[in-house]
């Protein structure tokens, strides 16, 4: 049993319990942060330590059903992204909850438990483990969605639960199909379904797309995501821009390439229709985003649209597009968490939630809106920021894969992104009467978005940080 994996997956459970320690007054604030830091260190250590890629089996439930973990390239990429972003997100949540005092302990319990579920999904070595933690993720994030307990939140919680449970049920069906055809559930490079009949492969692929597509917000399964924006902003930031939706994308990635396998995927001949699905998600998601006045809802639809980039690469089955989509997997996480952090800071400091009321906000909160602007420019794909890179590799991939239509979609989407982000930035800085002032960097509400925005630039300026990792991952998945 690998100790680092044990820490990554099991420590957050202890952290969640520690939130309730009565003797420590600041336990609800310290325990989650400490947990997040330790988990991030453990995940980082997995790459450095030899033998991280070996499977460690924890428990054999029944023949064929075991709980096992392995930190291979794809697993590490997702685990590292989530664990690293968990640290600023927890710091941010601490400040946020200091302003919105409502059931703080409950909030941090489930916030920390979500880390276990996410790490479990990322590091799973077989389909059963993936399914277990995918199901678990729903149950531990549900209380976060309905945290405010308003009628709206309850409604959103119900929608979230219905979508997620139905999705997990479909995943279970796919798992049963896999088990029946392959006789094993262990993730294998090259997949398990290579020898199966095209009809079975097609059925499995469709089931996987529907099942993981719920959390990856593939249209038309996206409706829960904008609704879930009633959750507190740290939850929206972390879970609905990074952990939950990326868990969906990662589930697709994992099962498409380690369960179905790229050869079988080709045999199923579904990639054109799946690409169409992703393209529709990209375009319609952006169009919906245009019409939103609530900032968080606009960001949510933007997420729907941007996740389309990631699923596009996964669906295509071509190494080039997959590389781009993996880059975007990380880059989008960084940019979107920044945007949500900014939205939350604005709501906390000024109470403004609507874009139409944000005139002059940039002069009142220059740091926050500066970070927002950077991330938004990255979303559009302007050059020094990391969003440009993912798009660049997607373009290249589209050309090598012989799918020029993807380029058209990406360009159209970039334009739409500009349409829905630039007015916010314009109004924030150039309209209204406010005087320039600084909001001060002392609160985590302010410095976390600045930090993540800085990371966006770092990743944008130094492509070699991410590109080799993504290329390695593609290699491990497709060959």
């Amino acid at each position, binding site marked *: 049993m690998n100790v680092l994996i044990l820490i990554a997956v099991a420590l957050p459970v202890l952290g969640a319990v520690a939130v309730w320690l009565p003797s420590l007054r600041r336990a609800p604030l310290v325990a989650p942060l400490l947990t997040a830091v330790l988990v991030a260190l453990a995940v980082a250590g997995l790459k450095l330590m030899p033998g991280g890629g070996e499977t460690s089996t924890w*428990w*054999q*439930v*029944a*023949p064929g*059903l075991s*709980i096992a973990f392995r930190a291979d390239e794809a697993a590490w990429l997702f685990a590292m992204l989530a664990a690293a972003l968990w640290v600023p997100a927890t710091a941010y949540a601490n400040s946020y909850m200091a302003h919105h005092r409502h059931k703080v302990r409950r909030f941090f319990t489930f916030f920390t438990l979500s880390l276990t579920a996410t790490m479990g999904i990322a590091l799973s070595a077989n389909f*059963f483990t993936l*399914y*277990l933690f995918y*199901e*678990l993720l729903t*149950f531990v994030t549900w*209380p976060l969605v*309905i945290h405010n*307990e308003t009628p709206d939140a309850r409604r959103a919680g119900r929608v979230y*639960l219905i979508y997620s*449970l*139905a999705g997990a*049920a479909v995943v*279970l*069906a796919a798992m*049963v199909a896999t*088990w*029946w055809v392959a006789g094993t559930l262990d993730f294998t490079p090259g997949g398990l379904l290579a020898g199966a009949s095209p009809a079975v492969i097609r059925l499995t692929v469709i089931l996987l797309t529907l099942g993981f597509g719920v959390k990856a917000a593939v249209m038309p399964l996206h409706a829960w995501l904008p609704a879930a924006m009633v959750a507190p902003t740290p939850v929206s930031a972390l879970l609905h821009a990074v952990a939950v939706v990326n868990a969906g994308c990662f589930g697709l990635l994992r099962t498409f390439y380690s369960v179905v396998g790229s050869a079988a995927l080709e045999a199923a001949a579904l990639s054109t229709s799946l690409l169409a699905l992703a393209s529709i998600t990209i375009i319609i998601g952006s169009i919906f985003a245009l019409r939103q006045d609530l900032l968080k809802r606009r960001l949510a639809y933007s997420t729907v649209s941007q996740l389309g980039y990631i699923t596009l690469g996964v669906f295509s089955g071509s190494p080039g597009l997959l590389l781009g989509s993996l880059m975007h997997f990380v880059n989008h996480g960084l940019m979107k968490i920044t945007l949500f952090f900014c939205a939350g800071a604005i709501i906390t400091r000024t109470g403004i939630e609507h874009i139409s009321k944000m005139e002059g906000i940039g002069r009142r909160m220059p740091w926050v809106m500066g970070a927002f602007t950077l991330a938004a420019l990255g979303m559009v794909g302007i050059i020094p920021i990391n969003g440009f890179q993912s798009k660049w590799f997607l373009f290249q991939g589209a050309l090598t894969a012989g799918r020029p239509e993807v380029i058209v979609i990406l360009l159209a989407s970039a334009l739409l992104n500009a349409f829905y982000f630039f007015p916010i930035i314009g109004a924030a800085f150039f309209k209204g009467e406010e005087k320039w002032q600084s909001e001060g960097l002392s609160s985590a509400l302010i410095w976390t978005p600045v930090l993540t925005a800085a990371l966006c630039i770092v990743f944008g300026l130094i492509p070699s940080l991410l590109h080799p990792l993504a290329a390695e991952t593609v290699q491990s998945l497709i060959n």
Partner: protein
Amino acid sequence: MFNNLPVLIVVMLLISAFLAPLFVRRFRRATQVVAGVVTWTAAGLSAWLLARVVQAGPIRFAVGGWPAPWGIEVTATPLSAFVVTVATVIVAIVMLGLPREQRDWPSNRAGWYITLLLLLTAAMAGMTFANDLFNLYVFFEVTALSSWGIVAAKTDRSAADASFKYLMLGAIGSSFVLFAIGITYVVTGYLNMSFASAFIAAAQLHPIIPWVIATFFLVGLALKAGLFPMHIWLPDAHSAAPTSASALLSGVVVKVYAVAMAKVFYGLFGGASLEAMGISEMVRLAAVLSILAGSLFALVQTDIKRLLAYSTVAQIGYVFLGFGLGGTVGVAAALYHILAHGLMKASLFLASGKVIELRGSRNIKGFAGAGRLLPLPMAIFTLAALSMVGLPLLAGFTTKWYLFNAGLEARLYWVPVVVILSSLLNAAYFLPIVWRIWFGQGEAEGAADRRVPGLIPLAVLLVAVGLVPNPLLNLLQQAAAWLIS
């Protein structure tokens, strides 16, 4: 020494059943304790018997020294020993709560209630061990009579009404079963299942005859087991009964009828001809209807006990589905679910009994905020509910998984679909309650007494069979292989 163990278990329970009312007036506490000890002893003996038959093969015992087919024969196979062990263990655990439950009862009622519980246990054991159709019928009736009595144990008027409804439909069921036994006897000349089965296998019967026998048995037993659409008595009966009785009726008794069906069908016809004659198909159809309809009815209930009772209608469908699918995997899934559901449903009934006692109402609104009042019982309720939904690592998932495998092995691809759909429906009616328990706004006072005896052992067993199902399933597959051969 071992050969008469099955009879010993039954007789011990029978005798102590009728001793209970004699002593209850003077020594109520002692009577309750002794009843518990007797049940635990029976449980221990049947576990021992189980270990024994797994090791040394089935035991046949001719009662009174009269050999079969003339005398009454009792057989202890891995299957029957397992079912009796499960039944006695759950009864024994539930009986831990008797002193608390009977606190305000008059001695008369308390004593006879213990009689009925022990009688019920004895009859279930007898029914499971019987290898003789008529003996089966007698214990079948004793089981029924004691369950009718138990349902009527409360003094409010809905109890009498529910019990009468149960009685009427149960009596129809019994008549069907007796008729089926009569036909079997007329056709084969035997009441002993082994002999009758040999006769049926050898004689070239007109295919309609086994079919009629099976149909009569199925109607009779499905009525007793509460399979849809013959479930109409079940929600009334299971909700009107005292909490411990609800737990047992839903958790154990209905399942024993399913086992009786499996024993009779496999015992008389054998797995292959069941499939050939379309009887398995019939069982599967009834099971699927029950699974879906039970869950749909449960969705609209506002009375927690009725909700749990409808959930039983759905869950008994799983057991019938497993038996209907056949094969070692299917039968093992059914047997596993008998245990798993017994533990889950008993925990759910006991935990909600506490909430009902506290709120004075059976409406599920009463669960609001119960998590703060009764943290441990409600945590166990949540655990059992999630297990019902079929979350991996919990017992409910193992059943589902084995049903999937059995369905796919039989090339019935709709089985996973139905089972998955049913777990979604389970989620739809259990999760709102779980939400109410932990996040609902409700009165947080009362609860001087937070303990629910028996709940912790049930939960421990539930977690254990969920986490470590392997040894158990190996045993059950052995039992299943024995039933099918």
